[in-house]
């Protein structure tokens, strides 16, 4: 069953603009992660935010988490053409096997 739901499904912006993607989920979580997937490649882990955290930064990435609304957002500042990719949120539930549930992704296109 799908847990995370990204919004929008597709986003097209110009280089230098900021890109914001949102993720909503249904049940309580232990952590929420964002992954990037370039066309034809595997997923790459970007950032993890735990349920007791509200905001986290990594380079040009900023992630927020609102557990009361069961939602998260990923902000990419000063986007570059190389940021063109699909972005997935994944929720972790603290289980003993480390299983994640992935959303369907947001396809970001950054035009030079």
């Amino acid at each position, binding site marked *: *069953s*799908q847990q995370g739901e990204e919004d929008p499904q597709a986003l097209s912006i110009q280089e230098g603009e900021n890109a914001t993607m949102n993720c909503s989920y249904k049940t309580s979580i*232990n*952590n929420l*992660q964002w*992954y990037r997937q370039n066309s*034809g*490649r*595997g*997923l*790459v*882990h970007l950032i*993890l935010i735990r349920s007791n955290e509200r905001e986290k930064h990594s380079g040009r990435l900023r992630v927020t988490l609102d557990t009361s609304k069961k939602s998260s957002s990923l902000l990419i500042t000063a986007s570059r053409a190389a940021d063109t990719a699909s972005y*997935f949120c*994944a929720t*972790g539930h603290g*289980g*003993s*096997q*480390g*299983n*994640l*549930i*992935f*959303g*369907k*992704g947001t396809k970001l296109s950054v035009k030079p």
Partner: protein
Amino acid sequence: DAGITQSPRHKVTETGTPVTLRCHQTENHRYMYWYRQDPGHGLRLIHYSYGVKDTDKGEVSDGYSVSRSKTEDFLLTLESATSSQTSVYFCAISGGTSGRVTDTQYFGPGTRLTVL
């Protein structure tokens, strides 16, 4: 790609034939996962392993079996492939060398399987 390889990278097969996909890691991570990725569905977990010979089912396990006889190898078998199993298959690992669950997963490059 965190020392994860998948083979083959591409495969075309016919309905009813058995197919085995291999995931190999050099990182000594305890946990290994098989996902399939389809348009409109994102990634869905097929099976996972939490140690040698220890495996369990994921969300979409019907029609698939797995085996893990060594830490470094996790095999996914389609006993009798069907067209609905046409997909891109990803292997992932986590857990590090400590064996404790860590939350981050590292993905292989994927195998594109077409069942005619």
